[in-house]
Every structure is written in structure tokens, then in C-alpha cells.
């Protein structure tokens, strides 16, 4: 299945919920609104012409103005790839968990919560796992994070 065929299939099935962005190099990048997330994910996985059953990656991004949550998926049968993102403002950084659709999303969402502070609803185990047990210095991957002992590399 080529990229053009995939694009037409997505526009047919989910044209009102996924908007194509032009920032994706080499793969299709869409934007999905937060309230449509679970429905879009279910359609992407269950529909036979799309069949995105292979969950590769998800992570948070801090662009200094907003948070973004990016999802990368693949399909084993049709050998295609797709990416999409959900944009969240700083003051309401919450998103639903997709682990009921893809069980592999569990640890990725846990890490995203731990490093960015994006709250993941309906997650079964939102506890600390990468940072030290007594970590109390905030969410380190945010762009405005700082702490004593954190040394930035000087510009050359």
C-alpha cells in the first residue's frame, strides 16, 4: 500500500477527525484533537484497510509554547507507517491513556508523565520509574526546568 493510497483511505474513514500537517518528512503526520483521540485510535486499529496494530512509540514534546504528544504507528499486514500528534496547552496538560487499545503504550505513557508532567487519565500504574526514588525537583524534560548542580554546556 503506497502513501497516496493510505492518504485516501484515511480521508475516507477519518477525514473529519485527522488533519494532515505539512511538517512530516518522509512519513505522513496528522493532527488529532484531544477529545477524538480514543475513537481515532480504535478505528486505526480495527479497520481492515488500515490495520495499525503495531504500536512503535509515543512521547511528549515541549515547544516552549505548548505540549505535544506524538504517536508513531505501523501496520504489519499492509506495511505502512503513520504518525499523529495531539496538541495540549500548558495549563490543561491531560490526555487519555490508549493502553486499552495497544497494551504496549503502558510504559511509554508512564515515562511521559514522569519527565514532562502530562497527566495520563485511566492509567493503571502512574508511578516513578526512571528517576531516583527520592526525586523532588520537578519535571526535568521541560524547557524551563533548572536545578542546582545542573551544568549547561557553554557555547563554543
Amino acid at each position: 500500500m503506497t502513501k497516496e493510497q493510505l492518504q485516501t483511505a484515511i480521508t475516507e474513514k477519518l477525514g473529519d477527525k485527522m488533519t494532515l500537517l505539512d511538517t512530516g518528512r518522509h512519513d505522513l503526520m496528522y493532527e488529532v484533537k484531544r477529545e477524538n483521540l480514543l475513537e481515532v485510535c480504535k478505528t486505526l486499529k480495527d479497520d481492515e484497510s488500515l490495520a495499525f496494530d503495531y504500536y512503535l512509540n509515543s512521547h511528549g514534546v515541549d515547544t516552549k509554547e505548548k505540549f505535544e504528544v506524538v504517536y508513531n504507528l505501523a501496520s504489519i499486514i499492509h506495511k505502512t507507517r503513520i504518525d499523529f500528534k495531539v496538541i495540549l496547552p500548558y495549563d490543561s496538560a491531560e490526555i487519555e491513556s490508549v493502553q486499552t487499545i495497544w497494551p504496549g503504550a503502558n510504559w511509554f505513557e508512564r515515562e511521559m508523565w514522569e519527565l514532562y508532567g502530562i497527566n495520563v487519565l485511566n492509567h493503571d500504574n502512574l508511578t516513578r520509574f526512571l528517576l531516583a526514588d527520592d526525586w523532588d525537583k520537578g519535571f526535568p524534560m521541560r524547557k524551563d526546568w533548572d536545578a542546582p548542580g545542573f551544568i549547561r554546556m557553554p557555547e563554543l
Partner: protein
Amino acid sequence: MGIIKKLPVYAEKVPGGGIVTTSLEMVLNQARARSLWYLLFGTACCAIELMCTGASRYDFDRLGMIFRATPRQSDVILTAGTITTKMAPRLRRLYDQMSEPRYVIAMGGCTINGGPFYYDSYSVEKGIDHIIPVDIHIPGCPPRPESLLEGCLHLQEKIKKEKLSDWQEK
């Protein structure tokens, strides 16, 4: 008889034949230096070079060094790899579980001052000097097996110069 002539100066020749007298200190130091058993403590990239040094081409066994899995049976801890803030209390605990005489070789740039993770990292301990007392530092990222073997030979030289009274006072 011939062996008496080949031994270095510190062996005293007894008239009439084959007894060698020397000091207890010298024998103990030679025995300790020639059979250091190291604890397998590889965290990161330097652990692969540690494994290669213990394998066929650069052999550790010819220096008398064998790996042990538990700190109770080892003499030297070879910290190979980055130590993070989460791992530091466990390293201290392992060092405390070793029985004396015990030595520490810090292998790689990360154990000296944080290595390539000195800047911009929020969870790396910048050196292990403030966690456990280090005897030998080996620089490199990762150090070649020949550097590691040279570091172990320097440790052997250091052990041979020790006095028995050092350990008694501790």
C-alpha cells in the same frame, strides 16, 4: 640451591642450604597482588571492554584475576560504567559488603568526573570519588583493554608497597 641465587636481595641465604627467610609482609603482599578477584560490576559501555579483557585475546586470568559474582568473595571492585544518582547508594552498599583488604579501580571517564555526561545531564554522578575511596583511575571512553591491564598492574605495584601496620590501624 639455584633458586636462592635467582631470588632478589630480600631473601637471606642461610649457610648450609635450602631455607629462604623473608618477611611475612612481603609474602602476604605478593600473594594478595598476584590473585586479585574482581567483582563483576559493569553498568555501561565499559562493561563490554571489561568482558573483552577477560576473554581470549587479552586474558585477565594470566594476572590471576577471576570474576566473582558476589562482593563477599572479591578483593577489588572494578566499576566499569556510569554511576547515576539512583545507583549510587547500591554501589556504596556493595563496597561496604566487601571484606578488607579491598581495593577500587575506577574505569572509564564517567567514573572520574562524569565523562561525556558532565554537561546537561540531571541524573549522573560526576565521578565516584565522593561515594567510595578509589585507588586507581583509568581514563578513556572506553579505555582499551591494554589500558585496563596496565591499570591492574599499577594496582599490583601499589599493593606490593603496603605495610601490615596499615591494615591493623584501620
